[in-house]
């Protein structure tokens, strides 16, 4: 293997670089997927649709309406909020902002309308379903107004769409890099390797003895490239986590997850196997002279 590395470093470096690029792209796609998966559950904790009830709707009717809405597919929870509770919440939130609670001290308890708070199940089509549910609720008598948080959900929808597009782009680039991984080392230095095969075959080296050093070198190059990729991804993840949290706000958990270690290990093992195979294939086949 030392001779293989010493005499033809360029194809092995190319293989190492190709694996690093491939792993970085695939790891990035996986990270984007991880982040999307971590955002959705957080989103599910929020209320997605608020239906404000008319003043003349009775409590029984409000509860009946809540029961009906809870049976709509995709709805996880429906909660009826009374005027007093709504006012208390508003006072608590304004207190946290500081200095505005005095403004609310003169508000009567029945001033704020009753409402139904609807929490939808967390899926990729959350914002679309919230919009559809809001449109249906608006048609129900007794409901004065419906707020589907469209602005926020629309923003989230665009972020998730961006992540999805980014993920697909990275995957496509990873495919291209994968082809480069396979083709580039096979092309580079082929003539020189043909000479070496001819000489070694003449001198009595076995086919396995000729290919083994290159298989080992290919596997080692893949291991090195993959390790480098994980290291760079980790640095990028640590650097960008803070910026991403600021962008997505409370929708992001405290610590953005990295690629699970067992997936990293599996990808590394596969990379080493592919690298070893590419290394073996890099040696031209030897026609049996004694056929």
């Amino acid at each position: 293997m030392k001779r293989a590395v010493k005499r033809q470093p360029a194809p092995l470096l190319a293989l190492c670089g190709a694996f690093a690029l491939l792993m970085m792209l695939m790891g990035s796609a996986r990270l984007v997927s991880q982040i999307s998966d971590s955002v959705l559950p957080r989103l599910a904790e929020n209320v997605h649709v608020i239906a404000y009830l008319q003043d003349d709707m009775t409590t029984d009717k409000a509860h009946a309406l809540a029961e009906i809405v809870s049976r709509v597919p995709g709805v996880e929870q429906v909660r009826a909020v009374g005027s007093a509770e709504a006012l208390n919440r508003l006072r608590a939130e304004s207190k946290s902002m500081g200095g505005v609670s005095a403004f609310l001290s003169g508000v009567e308890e029945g001033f704020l309308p009753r409402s139904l708070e609807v929490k939808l199940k967390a899926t990729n089509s959350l914002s679309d379903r919230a919009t559809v549910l809001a449109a249906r609720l608006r048609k129900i008598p007794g409901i004065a107004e419906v707020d589907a948080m469209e602005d926020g959900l629309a923003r989230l929808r665009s972020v998730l769409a961006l992540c999805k597009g980014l993920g697909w782009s990275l995957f496509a680039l990873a495919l291209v890099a994968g082809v480069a991984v396979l083709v580039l080392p096979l092309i580079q230095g082929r003539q020189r390797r043909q000479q070496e095969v001819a000489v070694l075959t003449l001198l009595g080296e076995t086919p396995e003895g000729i290919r083994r050093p290159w298989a080992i070198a290919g596997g080692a190059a893949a291991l090195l490239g993959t390790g480098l990729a994980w290291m760079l991804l980790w640095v990028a993840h640590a650097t960008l986590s803070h910026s991403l949290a600021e962008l997505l706000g409370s929708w992001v958990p405290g610590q953005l997850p990295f690629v699970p270690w067992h997936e990293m290990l599996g990808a590394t093992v596969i990379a080493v196997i592919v690298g070893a195979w590419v290394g073996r294939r890099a040696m031209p086949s030897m026609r049996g002279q004694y056929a």
Partner: protein
Amino acid sequence: MPPNDRPRSGGLYAQIGLSQPGASTLSTVLRLQDVSCARHGRTVVNGVSLSVEAGQVTLLRGGRGAGKSTLLAIAAAVIRPGAGRVFIAGRDILGLQSSSLPFVRRNVGYLPPEPPLVNDESAIENVMMALAVRGEAIGNARVLAMASLRAVGLPESAAELDVSELSWGERRLVAVARAMVGSPPLIVLDEPAAGLDADDREAVAMAMGVAQSCGSAVICGSADPSFATLLAEAGAQIVELEGGRLVGGPRMTVLRGLRATPAPAPGVISTVDADIDEELDDDDLTQEVDESQELASESTP
């Protein structure tokens, strides 16, 4: 020039029961039994039987298209004959599985008509490759390789140059050195003196003598009369090949011993009777090269 006196530890010699070089009991290293070979519909070798024993040098002579290169390639287990049997150290090569042939070739130092070299490795590294395949340690391999290059007359300054920087003649010497390094049990050389000047031819002949003294069986094909003279003076046995057949004798020709043997069997041209002064013109030499090139293009991977 000091001989390669590395003690032989095993390999082919172990198989034939020869424990040390120069043993008093001569053993047959190579035996061709009634081999024939056709190429492109033309019979090139026809019913040749030949034996070469340890510690001997045999020169195969012949004119254009005589079949020397083909016969040498058969002897080196590089090509398969159409008929007959090939024994190396008593083992029938044709009966071996193809996976075993590399292990046979490790014990045969073969110089083909157009020997492949790795151009971007140095001369000494090219020679060391032969030893590396045999499992020799790098340090010892380097010493042996340098000794072999010196033995064939390559200057030490050229040993570290890449082969691509050497002249044609120097590359030829590197290939000869690689075939003879470590004195393998069987050395098969096809035109080792081709393209070399007088000094280099003499160095190659001397190197062959050194290999012989270490117990190697050396068989060499050459159309060069001056080189043949050198070998004959060194005690080589000369065998004449014409039209793919051995000339003038029964097919089974056994070559025995060196000068201390009785009169040679009928058909064998002795060192006294050989018409070594027969001149071959340039066309004959060109034909020899053409035949060698054709063989090389068919046998290399």
